[in-house]
């Protein structure tokens, strides 16, 4: 019931923040209406990074305490993180085409890092699909999430150096919108969308967590059912070695 209230609050605030970003705030002087994409793009990216952070921490907690609830949190974080990462990249490309002239800008370290991030966590989700035993799956996922989290800073540094050491053409910094000189309306649209998306993120996390718990229980009860059936009289010949 509480989750439903959170869901309604999230929906209302996303709609309200979208209205602010689309109707209240004027179009950007240089970038025109395309700049409005930034409001949702930055919010999505923030929520995506938050998700992967949660996944890494939950994975470590699983390795430490072996509590299936932590694995459910890790799964929820990875899945929702992939969703918002894909959304952030898509929004960035839609923005990049009119402003930069290309969908994909190799010299932007954030774009390349985020693309690798997406690949890492799509792999994480596939890995979970490839392992049937719940505890084994949780352990494998946790160590992979940990190694991925360690790798991301190195990826980011290497891509920054790649551009920096090369001294190629410098493109205007893509989001100057967060600098203090930006008019307050722009900043407020950005912040309100980030807050609204955080609410939506919280709602999705809660729901995905609940679903993951149910899935885990179903797997467990199916296994218990098999054990009970195997132990039943008359089934002695079918006991698995």
């Amino acid at each position: 019931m509480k989750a439903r209230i959170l869901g309604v609050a999230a929906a209302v605030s996303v709609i309200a923040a979208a209205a602010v970003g689309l109707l209240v705030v004027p179009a950007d002087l240089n970038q025109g209406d395309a700049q409005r994409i930034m409001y949702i793009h930055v919010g999505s990216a923030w929520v995506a990074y938050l998700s992967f952070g949660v996944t890494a921490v939950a994975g470590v907690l699983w390795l430490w305490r072996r509590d299936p609830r932590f694995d459910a949190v890790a799964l929820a974080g990875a899945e929702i993180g992939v969703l918002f990462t894909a959304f952030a990249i898509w929004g960035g490309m839609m923005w990049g085409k009119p402003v930069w002239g290309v969908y994909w800008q190799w010299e932007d370290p954030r774009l390349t890092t985020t693309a690798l991030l997406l690949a890492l966590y799509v792999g994480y989700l596939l890995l979970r699909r490839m392992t049937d035993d719940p505890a084994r799956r949780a352990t494998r996922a946790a160590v992979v999430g940990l190694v991925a989290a360690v790798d991301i800073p190195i990826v980011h540094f290497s891509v920054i150096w790649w551009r920096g050491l090369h001294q190629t053409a410098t493109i205007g910094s893509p989001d100057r919108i967060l600098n203090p000189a930006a008019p307050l309306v722009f900043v407020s649209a950005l912040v309100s969308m980030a807050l609204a998306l955080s609410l939506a993120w919280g709602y999705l996390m809660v729901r995905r967590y609940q679903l993951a718990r149910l899935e885990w229980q179903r797997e467990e009860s199916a296994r218990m059912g098999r054990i009970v059936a195997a132990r039943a009289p008359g089934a002695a010949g079918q006991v698995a070695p």
Partner: protein
Amino acid sequence: MNGVRAEARIALAIAGKDALSELRGRHAAVSTLFFAALVLLLFGFALGPDSRRLAEAAPGLLWLAIVFAGLLAVGRLHLVETEDDALEQLALYPIERRAIYAGKALAGSAVMLVLGGVLLPTVAILYGIDLAPAVLPLLATLLLGTVGFAAVGTFYAGLTVRMRAREVMLPLLMLPIVAPLLLAAVQATGAALAGDPFGELGSWLQLLAVFDVVMAIAGAATYGFLLED
């Protein structure tokens, strides 16, 4: 201190065993080498016949060949352990799991170093590059790059060896992780071949070294969890 020495001895014993089995089962190692050389040849078909363009792209092509062949090499070092449940036996020994990891990573590094040592002159011949003035920096790059690849590859091979669709999962999980290694190794190789005009070679080698150390620590710390199940 004694414990560290004992672990190092175990690691060396495992690495020695793997090296021996690679030497005795020569056809597998040779096929990997041949595959890598074939990749280089195919890159020539894809980008040639303009030799200037091939020479320009050579550092990237060399490292892609090393990465592709390396995937096969590190995968095989774990695959042989699944025969007769050898990996389970290894996990049952009362030794530190990180020593097993270190041994496997060491063997992987050695195999890949040989691989790279053969591919480097192959690139020079096929793409028309003069290696002579840059031998030392090239060898340093090769060493740091292959050690880092083996550090990551040993972890992921151990992860995927008993998994469904292992052949797809190993590259799928591992390639995004080694992306910074590929980037730094290609840049270092390019800088070395060009005589390091901008003085960036050292920075890329440092990045490779940091990658190696971080990934070796992460692999050694988590490898034990993979053997548990």
